[in-house]
């Protein structure tokens, strides 16, 4: 094999065909509110942990829906469960509970 000095760049494209619908449905069974997010960003804006470690619930939900479950876990593992986000969520999502469920559901993988 020749060393050409470069290799094929990897793609950043999100492939929704890889979305684990069955898994997500299971999560939604425990946490029906996960479907209610409107990606307004209130949670991220008010996040205490976010000042030290990139933390975003709305991005984490999006990551799961974009078949990037590991990224979701990464985005939530700095959470200190202070619950400030829950007070700002316009859709009234029980975010603390949701975070714990997501970490439990996808964290072990």
């Amino acid at each position: 094999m020749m060393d050409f000095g470069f290799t094929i760049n990897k793609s950043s494209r999100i492939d929704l065909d890889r979305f684990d619908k069955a898994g997500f449905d299971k999560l939604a069974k425990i946490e029906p509110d996960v479907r209610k997010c409107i990606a307004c960003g209130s949670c991220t804006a008010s996040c205490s942990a976010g000042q030290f470690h990139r933390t975003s619930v709305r991005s984490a939900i999006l990551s799961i829906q974009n078949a990037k479950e590991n990224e979701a876990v990464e985005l939530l593992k700095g959470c200190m469960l202070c619950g400030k986000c829950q007070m700002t969520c316009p859709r009234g999502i029980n975010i603390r509970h949701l975070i714990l469920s997501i970490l439990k559901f996808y964290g072990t993988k």
Partner: protein
Amino acid sequence: MGILYDRLCQDFRLREGLNACINCGTCTAICPAAEFYKYDPRSIMDIVQSQDDEAIMKLLKSDTIWYCGECMSCMTRCPRKNAPGLVVMALRSLSVEMGCYMESEKGRQQYLLSKDICGNVLKYGYCVYPREFKYQAHLEAGPVWKWEEEHMDDVYERLGANLDKPGPGAERKIPQEDLDDLKRIFDVSGGTARMRAVEDAGLKKAEDLGLTEQEYAEKVYTECNEDHLNH
């Protein structure tokens, strides 16, 4: 606020390419660079139209503006008839004018591009000239090119070219008077000034790094930080 934006607006490409972006993402959706670098042309449009000097300065110094391949696929789809590709070209021009490009690895590649391509244009009248297209630097051109390089006169004659000879034809010797025209065009239109500035900045950088010109060129040609790429 807006000083850099005003400078960008002097570039005709910005005036043609940016007219109130609505952040819909049709450009990023099909952008070859968005797929194979960490790149999002929509965000660039958004930063430029924010007129935020600090954010624009950050762009000018970044690798980001150098990821675009200028294929202009973005222009076909934009519902606002914008051209992110043209906006990137205006950013690149300003980055070079202000010397910001020297702060990024991809930006510093301008040194070599300018040297090789402008060199070819002024010396031969072509952007690409086969005798300067070396197999050793282009292994992907394959053994066929190696063979062509070794037998260039014979191969080009066989292919009906007029390599380095007077008169019309492929790869003919372009008359000196025409090359002189090109040189004067470069002089009157800012081409020469840009070439000089880029060359000087590159050589200064080489000196700072304690490298010879050749070593520096090699570094620029081959160096690639992993951070540019998706994982």
